C-alpha cells in the first residue's frame, strides 16, 4: 500500500522529516519492539519491562528533544544553534498535531507502565517523575525557557 509524500514548506532539514507519513507508526512500533526485546533479554515481568521502556524512553527523548541544541549538519550556518529540537519543530509554532502526538506518547506509556506494575511504589515514583518532566518540558509556555540558566547559550 502506497502513501503520498507531499513536500513541506519547512526549510529546516533537521525537523522536516517529521512531517512525512509513517513517522508516528515507526515511533510506536519502535517502542513496542523495544518492550519485546527488554522482556526477552531481562526475563522480568511485563510491568518491569514497560517501566524500563518508559524510563529509557524518557532518557533518550529528553536528551534528543530537549537537551541537544542545533542541527547535525553545518549547511544552515548555525541559525538554529540556540534551539533544541523541540523548539525547532514546525518552525516554532505551538500546539500542532505533531507536538500534541509527541506529548501524548509519554503519558500513554506512563499509564501502561503504572497499570502493569499495579502502581507499586519504587517504580511509580520514577515513572511519575519522568512523565512530569517530559510533559512540562513540552508546554507552550516553556518555549525557549532555560530554568536557572541550565543549557543556556554562552
Amino acid at each position: 500500500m502506497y502513501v503520498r509524500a507531499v513536500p513541506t514548506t519547512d526549510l529546516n532539514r533537521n525537523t522536516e522529516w517529521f512531517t512525512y507519513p509513517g513517522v508516528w507508526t515507526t515511533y510506536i512500533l519502535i517502542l513496542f519492539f523495544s518492550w519485546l526485546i527488554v522482556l526477552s533479554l531481562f526475563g522480568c515481568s511485563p510491568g518491569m519491562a514497560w517501566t524500563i521502556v518508559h524510563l529509557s524512553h524518557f532518557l533518550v527523548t529528553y536528551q534528543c528533544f530537549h537537551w541537544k541544541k542545533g542541527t547535525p549538519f553545518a549547511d544552515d550556518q548555525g541559525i538554529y544553534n540556540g534551539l533544541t529540537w523541540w523548539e525547532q519543530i514546525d518552525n516554532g509554532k505551538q500546539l500542532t498535531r505533531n507536538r500534541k502526538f509527541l506529548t501524548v506518547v509519554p503519558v500513554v506509556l506512563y499509564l501502561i507502565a503504572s497499570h502493569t506494575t499495579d502502581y507499586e511504589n519504587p517504580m511509580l515514583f520514577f515513572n511519575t517523575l519522568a512523565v512530569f518532566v517530559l510533559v512540562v518540558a513540552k508546554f507552550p509556555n516553556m518555549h525557549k525557557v532555560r530554568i536557572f540558566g541550565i543549557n543556556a547559550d554562552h
Partner: protein
Amino acid sequence: MITIPYLTALTTYFSYGLLFAFGQFRDFFRKIFDWWQSSDLQGYAPICLGLEDFYIRRLYLRIQDCFGRPIASAPDAWFDVVERFSNDNNKTLKRTTKISRCLNLGSYNYLGFAAADEYCTPRAIESLKRFSPSTCSARVDGGTTTLHEELEECVADFVGKPAALVFGMGYVTNSAILPVLVGKGGLIISDSLNHNSIVNGARGSGATIRVFQHNMPSHLEKVLREQIAEGQPRTHRPWKKIIVVVEGIYSMEGELCKLPEIVAICKKYKAYAYLDEAHSIGAVGKSGRGVCELLGVDTADIDIMMGTFTKSFGSCGGYIAGSKELIKYLKYTCPAHLYATSISPPAAQQIISAIKVLLGEDGTSRGAQKLARIRENSNFFRSELQKMGFEVLGDNDSPVMPIMLYNPAKIPAFSRECLKQNVAVVTVAFPATPLLLARARICISASHTKEDLLKALEVISRVGDLVGIKYFPAEPMKEQREEGPIKVE
C-alpha cells in the same frame, strides 16, 4: 508527487534511527576516550561544536566512496573514473593510478558539448591562444574583451530579452544578484525546493523570506495574499518589493515548473518573477530556448531570467537577462561584476559557438539534431524505466530523471554495484534531499547512443533487482504470439 510504499517509509525511518543511534554511541565512547588523552588545542576553541559535523562524521563518511569520485577524462558519454581504495573504513580515500571506463549517467551534459566538438573546440582553442586562459581582471577594470560583449549580445538574443549580463560562476550569479535586487523591507517568496544558491542569496539579501509549497500556484497565491495583507513584520508597512523565485527544471525532481499559472499570479499581485533556468536553458523547448518556449510563456512577462552555461553549453558561468535598465543598474551595483574576475575567454567562446550550433548558424543542422535526440533519449529512457517498475520522477521531455531509492543502505549499494558494472551514477541523500527521499539522479545526454541507453537500462534493471528498488509492479512484456499450425482443409 512521490508515492512511497508504506513499509518502505517505516523501514527507512528505522534505518536512519539505527544509524543515528550508532553514531551517538560512537561519539559517546569517543568523548570518553578523548577525555583520557589530553588535547593539544592550547587554549583555542574547537573549530566545530560536537553536534555540527555529526552527520558528516557518522553517516556521510561511511559511504564517502560513492561521492566525489575523481574522473580522468572529459565528461562525455563514456569517461574514465579513477579507482580509489581505503585502509581505514572510508575515513580517508587514496587514489590509485587505475582507471575504469564507465558510462556517464551523472554529468550535466545535456547536448553533448562537454567533449570535443568539431565546431566549438577549434574556436575555443583559437580564443585561448588569442586571449589567454584568464582575463586576470574584474569586468570594470580590464576584464571586458570583445568576446564578453559578443557573448552578452548572443545570450540576450538567444533567451529573448533586451540585454544580458554574464558572470564567471553560476552559483555566484544567484547569490550575488539577489542581495542587489532586494534588501531589507522586501519580500522574497521562493519555491520550497529551490537550489542552495537561491537560498543563500535570499538569506544574504536581508529581505524576509517566505516559502510556498513546491509547484503549487494555489499555495503561492495564498502566501502572496497573506503577506501583502500583513505587510512587513512588526511595522506592518507595505513591502518595498516582492520577488517570486522559481526554477525552470528542478534538478532533484526533474519536474518542470508550472510557469504560466505562476506568472499569471505574479502579474495579478504585481510581484516580480525571477526564473532560474539552470537546467532548462538549451535542453528543452523546440529550439532550446528553455521552459518559456516549451510552456508558451512570453519572455516579456518574466522580469529576471537567470541561467547557467554549465549544463547544456559545456562551459562554465551564469547569466542574467532582463530589460536594458535592469542590466545597466546591475552593472554598477552587482559585486560579482565589479570585483569578481570575468568569465574566462575560451569558456566564453565555447558558449558563443555552442549557441551558434544550436541555432544552426554554423551551417549544419547538428543543433536541431541534438535537441531532437535529447528529447527522444529522455522520453525513451524514462518510459523504459517506468515499465520495469522503478519509481522515476520528472515530467516528460525533462532530461533529469531521479530514481527513488529511499533506504539509506540502498544508496551505497546501488552506487557501488553500478560502478562494478561500469555505469557511473550520482546518488543524492539527506540533507540535499528530504530524509526519506534519497534518490539516484540520472542525467541523459544527446551524446548517448541507443546502445548506451540499452546497456544502462540492462545494468540498472539488474542492479535494481539486486538492491530491491522496483517499488511498482513491472508491466508485463507483450507476449509473442506464436503462429499456430495452419489448418489445411
